[in-house]
């Protein structure tokens, strides 16, 4: 009843190509944005804003980046965290060493540096595929982390490699409170998500998917393999770099290289598997799922502990978390390789008919 498409005719190709062609979807999106931009900052408490929502947005952005490379272009990458680290540390250095650099400019520089690193470590993709390429990205992950740790310049020669992100100030306004940081992150992420969506529904997105599905055929119809693959690495790394910069400036504050380990790369990979590869929306869904799951597990274990009057040590909870993560990945790969985004689509298709059976 609610989700009827009947009566919504598209009389031009422009209408057919909208991101949300169905009116109900558009309304839903507007409501969601209204809630995110207006309701949440008003009623949200500090803890949720600073410890859950802001990092959720940051990893969503990184997930979008990884999705562009792995989901759309089919190049498996295990080096996501390394690109984020480049973004974080280079944004810090740009802010530190270039006088008068606006903070958004530093973020962009962080992203561009990450893109450059992405291109370098993406060069092997021209010769190697599949999990061989994953190994190349692992090389990137380990090398970048080592470089940031050992080369003093990156951390301004601090003895432990730890940096403290500078304050975020745009046009004289300092973003210091959780609410302001949340809104800044939300704005940046929303804009970049929109840009990504536009890109993926244009020729670039199609070229990426062609490379993913059958790169020999793509080359035969004229799609340039090298340019396209490197572009995928560049754009994806740019997104991860900006995410890293946001991670440092709007969430962590004090940043150590160990915040960007292989474990984080895996987490983001899990996000796109669960959320949906090849889907911008899926990146958000997966990020939400993976971010909220530990919280949920903690709550559940607290409830069980108090109900049964026993102590559940923290180690057990974190191991259960690992088991659940791993188990979910296997489950999703078996049942719905296209993740929650696909399940959502199926649900909407069913909703179109509801309450009728067919």
């Amino acid at each position, binding site marked *: 009843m609610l989700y009827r498409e009947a009566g919504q005719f598209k009389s031009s*190709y*422009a209408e057919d*190509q909208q991101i949300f062609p169905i009116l109900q979807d558009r309304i839903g999106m507007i409501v969601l944005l209204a809630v995110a931009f207006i309701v949440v900052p008003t009623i949200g408490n500090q803890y949720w804003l600073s410890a859950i929502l802001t990092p959720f947005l940051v990893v969503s952005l990184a997930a979008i980046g990884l999705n562009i490379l792995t989901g759309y272009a089919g190049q498996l990458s295990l080096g996501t965290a390394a690109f984020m680290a480049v973004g974080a540390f280079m944004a810090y250095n740009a802010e530190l060493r270039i006088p008068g650099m606006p903070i958004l400019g530093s973020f962009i520089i962080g992203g561009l540096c990450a893109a450059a690193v992405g291109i370098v470590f993406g060069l092997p993709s021209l010769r190697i595929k599949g999990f061989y390429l994953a190994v190349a990205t692992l090389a990137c992950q380990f090398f970048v982390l080592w470089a940031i740790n050992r080369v003093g310049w990156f951390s301004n020669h601090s003895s432990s490699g730890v940096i403290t992100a500078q304050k975020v100030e745009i046009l004289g306004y300092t973003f210091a409170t959780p609410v302001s940081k949340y809104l800044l992150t939300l704005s940046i992420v929303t804009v970049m998500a929109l*840009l*990504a969506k*536009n*890109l993926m529904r*244009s*020729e*670039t997105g*199609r*070229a990426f*998917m*062609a490379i*993913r*599905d*059958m790169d*020999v*055929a*793509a*080359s*035969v*119809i*004229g*799609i*340039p*393999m090298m340019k396209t693959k490197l*572009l995928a690495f560049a*754009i994806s790394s740019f997104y991860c770099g900006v995410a890293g910069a946001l991670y440092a400036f709007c969430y962590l504050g004090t940043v150590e290289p160990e915040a960007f380990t292989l474990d984080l790369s895996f987490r983001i990979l899990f996000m796109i598997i669960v959320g949906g590869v*090849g889907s911008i929306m899926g990146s958000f869904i997966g990020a939400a799922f993976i971010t909220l799951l530990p919280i949920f597990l903690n709550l559940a274990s607290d409830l069980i502990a108090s109900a049964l009057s026993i102590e559940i040590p923290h180690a057990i909870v974190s191991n259960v978390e690992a088991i659940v993560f791993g188990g979910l990945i296997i489950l999703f790969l078996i049942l719905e390789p296209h993740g929650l985004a696909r399940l959502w689509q199926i649900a909407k298709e069913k909703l179109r008919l509801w309450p009728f059976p067919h």
Partner: protein
Amino acid sequence: MRETEMTEGRLQAAERAHRIGGVILAVESVSLSFGGVKALSEVSFDVREHEVRAIIGPNGAGKSSMLNVINGVYHPQKGTIRLQGREFNDMDSHEAAKMGIARTFQNIALFKGMTVLDNVMTGRNLKMRASFLEQALWYGRARREELEHRRAVEEVIDFLEIQHIRKTPVARLPYGLQKRVELARALAAEPKLLLLDEPMAGMNLEEKQDMCRFILDVNDHYGTTIVLIEHDMGVVMDISDRVVVLDYGRKIGDGTPEEVRGNQAVIDAYLGVAR
């Protein structure tokens, strides 16, 4: 094919004959080997503009290899390929596409993760000029191009009668329709030369008739020069202007369908008893 359709086909062939122009593709003494295996030995033939040229022969004769050489996928060890007078032996498939050659494959090479519309749109990729930044902003030139090319693609979709499945993921389509989508993608590129590798393989009679009709329509409507590999002799005799016959990598026949049909070497190697 039945008698009436064959007569109609021949009439159309006569009409088409006067439209055929000069040589657009010249294959000169091409030899191709893989390791020790000689796929092609000194094959020479030409293709004229606007004609339908068939390549026939038993399995393993080197037909697909010939197509791959024309297309730039394989590079011949000896011999030359000339497209519109321009020599290109070392061009790769990407450059061949730029020069206006499009093709379909024996085992369908569609992009299984995309819809029909997206697949056909990829055929337009060489004509798209907007940079990725413009595309990200969905502004100005990028937006206009997307709409323009959508319009062009919809024409091809109408032409091949696949409107009803344009939003379907290609992986879900039956084999016959997938072949048609692949043809659409090749056509979307507005090619000068269209290479079809067994476009009717695995189809039933009805599907074959449809595909024949489409191929002829493409040749009539767009004037595209077509080179096709085909096993169904009825189809070959009916729709092609000239035929090349390959056997064990060598050319054993070259001429109009009637000439080739009567050629003893061809009969011995491939056709069997002349009807």
